[in-house]
């Protein structure tokens, strides 16, 4: 019996014309040349560099989140294309087709679950990736542009998820999208309900919301538009930006800093590629198991006449929805998200601190890291409040309270400077006063040249607020809870919005300083407005109804 010479067969196969025509290169000898050739000669792998720094292989450095996001994008593409075979985007059929996927299509339910859960996971992964990149200073020169592309990709990820939300055409979908798209109607100038909108002739049937919906309400056109955006237009743009994103990582080189000077780089094949594979496989496994155990939600068929109670946006937008409680739609739905996107893109250009590129550096970048993490924390805190603590009628329910039990009607709200407020002459008193406070807050941290003593300053500030609270309590205007609210929110705003900037960025040049302060003060204004509403039922601090300007 002839012995089977595996090596000989292998060589014959690899040397055959067929094999050679498909795979370039010969028998694998694991030489450095082979390893490099594997990366360079393979269209799928050549977006990698041939070698990377050892730190780039560290799980605790990268968290694997960039790769996992891309893996999820691929899962979403595959499951999404599969779902398209059974889904028809019309009002009469969409909901039924989802029911069919659930009940009558082989693996239909599994695919729908996988698509749904991978979309949610991708939002989380992309945000985590951004946090990692920020904390390791990987956006700094020369990677500013790629950070900007990353921010756009995050925005598009959210938009993709949002457009997909409508497609099942159930009550969850129609009301989440109604809440979401009405924010667009509040866009200044371009929206019919936004400030200045009516001045330039914006009506319900010609503004930016109308374009988005393809009509004046969420209907047949909207479903088709969202379908096309979800399945074709946005994935195409995301794909192009992804190529650009990867290409720039390759060209700008990976951010990880060397452990020691003149350290030897390691081969991407196999060291990085095998890690990527494990991350991707774990992602696929995670999504599969999640999809087996948990079904995607599907509520009753969409009914424009029956509003669900409470109506909530998709969870990643619930933070913005919670902001809508405190601010007018054009601020909460347009200005705030706009500031977040523009502010994120601007970060690399205003952060001139050269330290902390390619490693975690809390001590070297205290201001940047603290405020960025505060922003991320606030985003998720608002999501938690909106998602878990808001019950029917959007009333505040603690986790131990039953949503079925009725709540007292909300107390009447009032405005400080406005027609019915304490000072009726908003123009005369409110605008100058508010302007003066804002200007002082903007300028003082830089104008005070000497670094303030943090403890003493905070002590003095909290003492003053406590005095105000004590007077308020003595006059019966507030109780201890309101006092605590006041102390906490103003204290936090003062610390993060005044003491920290004064300590760390007063040396920044004026343009960068002012942009930074605008972003910082906007963030703090959220805290302050939450305090004003939750503790004192203040609707607006300043309202000028004639031009729909309310703050």
């Amino acid at each position: 019996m002839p012995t089977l010479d595996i090596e000989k067969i292998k060589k014959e196969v690899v040397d055959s014309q067929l094999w050679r025509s498909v795979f370039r290169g010969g028998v694998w000898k694991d030489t450095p040349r082979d390893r490099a050739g594997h990366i360079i000669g393979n269209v799928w792998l050549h977006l990698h560099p041939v070698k990377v720094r050892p730190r780039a292989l560290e799980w605790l450095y990268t968290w694997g989140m960039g790769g996992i996001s891309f893996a999820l994008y691929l899962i979403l593409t595959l499951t999404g294309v599969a779902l398209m075979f059974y889904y028809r985007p019309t009002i009469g059929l969409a909901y039924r087709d989802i029911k069919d996927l659930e009940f009558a299509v082989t693996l239909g339910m599994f695919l729908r679950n996988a698509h749904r859960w991978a979309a949610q996971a991708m939002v989380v992964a992309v945000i985590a990736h951004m946090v990692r990149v920020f904390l390791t200073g990987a956006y700094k020169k020369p990677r500013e542009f790629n950070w900007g592309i990353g921010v756009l990709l995050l925005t598009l990820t959210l938009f993709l998820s949002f457009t997909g939300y409508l497609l099942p055409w159930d009550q969850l979908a129609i009301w989440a999208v109604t809440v979401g798209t009405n924010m667009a109607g509040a866009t200044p100038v371009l929206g019919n309900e936004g400030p200045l909108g009516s001045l330039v002739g914006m009506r319900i049937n010609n503004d930016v919301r109308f374009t988005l919906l393809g009509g004046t309400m969420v209907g047949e056109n909207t479903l088709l538009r969202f379908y096309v955006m979800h399945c074709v237009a946005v994935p195409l743009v995301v794909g192009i930006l992804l190529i650009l994103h990867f290409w720039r990582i390759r060209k700008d080189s990976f951010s990880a800093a060397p452990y020691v000077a003149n350290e030897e780089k390691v081969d991407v094949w196999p060291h990085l590629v095998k890690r990527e594979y494990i991350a991707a496989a774990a992602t696929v496994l995670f999504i599969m198991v999640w999809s087996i155990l948990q079904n995607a939600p599907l509520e009753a068929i969409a009914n424009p006449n029956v509003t669900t109670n409470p109506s909530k946006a998709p969870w990643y937008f619930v933070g913005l929805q919670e902001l809508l409680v405190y601010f007018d739609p054009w601020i909460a739905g347009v200005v705030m998200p706009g500031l977040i996107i523009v502010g994120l893109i601007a970060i690399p250009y205003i952060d001139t601190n050269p330290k902390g590129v390619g490693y975690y550096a809390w001590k070297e970048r205290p201001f940047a890291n603290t405020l960025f993490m505060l922003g991320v924390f606030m985003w998720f805190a608002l999501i938690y409040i909106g998602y878990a603590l808001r019950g029917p009628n959007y009333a505040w329910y603690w986790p131990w309270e039953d949503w079925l039990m009725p709540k007292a009607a909300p107390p009447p709200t009032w405005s400080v400077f406005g027609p019915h407020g304490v000072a009726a002459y908003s123009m005369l008193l409110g605008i100058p006063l508010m302007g003066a406070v804002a200007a002082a807050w903007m300028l003082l941290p830089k104008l005070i040249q000497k670094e303030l003593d943090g403890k003493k300053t905070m002590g003095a500030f909290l003492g003053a607020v406590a005095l105000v609270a004590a007077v308020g309590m003595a006059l019966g205007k507030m109780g201890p809870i309101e006092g605590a609210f006041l102390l906490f929110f103003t204290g936090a705003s003062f610390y993060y919005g005044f003491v920290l900037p004064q300590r760390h960025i007063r040396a920044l040049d004026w343009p960068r300083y002012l942009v930074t302060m605008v972003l910082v003060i906007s963030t703090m204004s959220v805290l302050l407005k939450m305090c004003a509403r939750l503790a004192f039922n203040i609707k607006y601090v300043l309202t000028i109804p004639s031009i729909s300007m309310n703050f």
Partner: protein
Amino acid sequence: MSYRKAFIASNALMLAAFVWAFAKDFNAEWKPYQKKYYQMAADEMDKQAAAEKDGKKAAELKAAARKMRRSPLEVKQIISVDLGRYDRCVTCHVGMDEYTNTTLKNTFTEHPYKAHPKVDTALIKAHPFNKFGCTSCHSGQGLATTVDGAHGWIKHWEKPMLKGVTIQGSCVKCHDNFESIKGAEVAAQGKKLFNQHGCQGCHAINGKGGVISVELGDISDKPFERIAGYNFKRVRIDGKELPDEHHNSHWNIQNWIRAHLVNDPAEVTPNDPFAKLNAEPIPPSGMPDFTKEISKDEADAIVAYLSGMTKEEVIPYRYHVTAPPAKEPALTGAAHGKFVYQKYGCQGCHGLDAKQGRRRFNALADGQKEYDEKMPEAEQFAQMMLGAEPTLPKLMGTYTHEELVRKIENGVSAADAKKWSPKGPMPMVYMPAWKGKISKAELDDLATWLLSIGVKDDSGF
């Protein structure tokens, strides 16, 4: 762990997860039912073959049994294009699938194997399954292929399968003449009771009837989103709470209607009479307590009748069976007046035969104590519950015929009510203006009858 091991492990786990997912999908809930049906049906045929003396017939039966046993498992459905039904009920209820069970009859007694009862009756002959589907009559979720899903015992399916006599409500959807057809007797009784107790005095159906409360012409479409959940929690049926799960086998529109008949509505919807949650006090549901007048079976009949009140379902005109409006008895004078009183549902508030006014929360009535601010809340509540609509015979002495006609024509606004507790809520119920709704001739006779039953006022006024 080395990456080589992780590579092998992750691939093995992915494969395992895929097999798990596929197995879960493959082992669909409906398959064992269909499989068992084929077996049972084949066994039955084998039994017949064994008993059959004619050899050729026995062989045929055996072959048929073999074929039945080998039938492929598949999702079966009835498509009713006209009614927009896609009903997969026959996937499990194979005995009701006319292609598998051509006679539509079998000897099985258990669901889902048993055949549809009464297939030989005119009722079923007139409603062939392949034309009407299943859910047109039974409701439920036709697209579903799971037990809970198909019967609608899940969240977010608002039309669960109709139980028991309630199914007669489905006759009402198309048959305007349902009162005279066989098989819809319970729904017909429901309509009779509805009018007899004066429900139409407050509730209109398709625009006919009072304006005090909800229009019931589409009551079975009422979204649960519009029923506060905690009100369901207060419902008692047979003295028991509805099972505390927000899925629609219990928290459904049938039980919501029933709740108003077998409970005191003021207990189901107590609202906020002492302004604990709101700036102003809000009276409990204005609907009177019918528990002493309407038995449980009668309540079921009314539920059956109202279950047919839908506007959501689009039914082609040729499926409708029209009926001429019911003839009114030829009566004159006071006798006609009494008929008019019932026709417009005056008894809904003023009581059967105008004998005793029903509850009107926080209105002034006989037998109440004097209002006292210091009275405990529970006692105040009890006093407010004693408030009542006028008992008409007691009032009649002070009216002339013309005055009475005018009063009925113009009604009495809610704001004019004399409250027992000045701090309490304004009564929810009021006397609407009947002008234009009750014809002049009817009004005259109504007034005549009312004056005839009035308690004569001999006090000298």
